């Protein structure tokens, strides 16, 4: 994928398909330790230890339409290119956590890209699943939590296009703010 935010969207889709009702997406940039970390954690159906050990293999997939599942292996491939890796932890019936860690100043680190579109379209089309998105750069950070958004919205559904637009703008503005504090684009 050309943007890290596309990998995030891809892995978050796995969480939706695992019937998660809470997905926590965290980006953690640490300039002192030169790391760029992405964590996608869900409370979906999870998998057995045996399964979790095989799941990075492109020929291992939950899909029935094809024998290939590329989301995790492609993410791992990107991470490895940046002197990093993707690890997956999962507990059956509890959920799954995917952690990608890469070298922050690596020449092959893809741009984060349009994370506001990733998060807002994920929220819009994810019918009832709560999303918490946090982006942290050293001591600066911001969070969008759909549970907080819903409290303010009353009857208005989270997927009303006006709400989606607000979410997209909110993230874009906060991402601009973080870029001024040193976040990578």
């Amino acid at each position: 994928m050309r943007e890290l935010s596309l990998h995030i969207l891809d892995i978050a889709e796995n969480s939706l398909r695992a019937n998660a009702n809470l997905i926590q997406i965290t980006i953690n940039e640490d300039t002192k330790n030169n790391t760029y970390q992405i964590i996608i954690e869900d409370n979906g159906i999870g998998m057995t230890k045996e399964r979790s050990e095989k799941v990075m293999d492109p020929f291992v997939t939950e899909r029935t339409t094809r024998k290939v599942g590329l989301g995790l292996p492609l993410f791992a491939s990107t991470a490895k290119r940046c002197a990093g890796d993707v690890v997956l932890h999962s507990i059956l019936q509890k959920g799954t956590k995917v952690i990608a860690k890469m070298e922050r100043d690596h020449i092959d680190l893809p741009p984060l890209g349009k994370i506001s579109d990733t998060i807002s379209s994920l929220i819009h089309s994810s019918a009832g699943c709560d999303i918490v998105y946090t982006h942290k750069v050293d001591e600066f950070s911001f969070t969008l939590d759909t549970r907080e958004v819903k409290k303010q919205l009353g009857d208005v559904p989270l997927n009303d296009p006006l709400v989606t637009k607000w979410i997209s703008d909110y993230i874009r503005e906060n991402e601009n703010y973080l870029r001024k504090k040193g976040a990578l684009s």
Partner: protein
Amino acid sequence: MKSMADLERVRKEAQKKIELRQSDERKQVIVYMGTCGIAAGAREVVASIIEELEKYELSNVEVTQRGCIGLCEYEPLVEVRIPKEKAVMYGHIDDQKAKRIVLKHIMDGIVLDEWVVKGI
């Protein structure tokens, strides 16, 4: 700078529009977001559709996502489901074509035949 306090205004605005909408049946647009779809540009397609729905104030249209259905070579795929009509599967859709689909198919009920996936 946007803040959570804006949501009160958003809530009121959205509420007004919900009250004004006709009680049409809910139309559904499915954008396929498997790895293949995302790699091909499905995110731009879904963002474009949501933008058009907001622009034309179409509040009876639901946009949902599904995973890969094995038609990877036709991605990005957009399926339009209108009650009482046959579902239509569009292939090789980009952000511009997505806007046409909202305008022509969802608003005017005209199927854009040249983009329909044939022979499946």
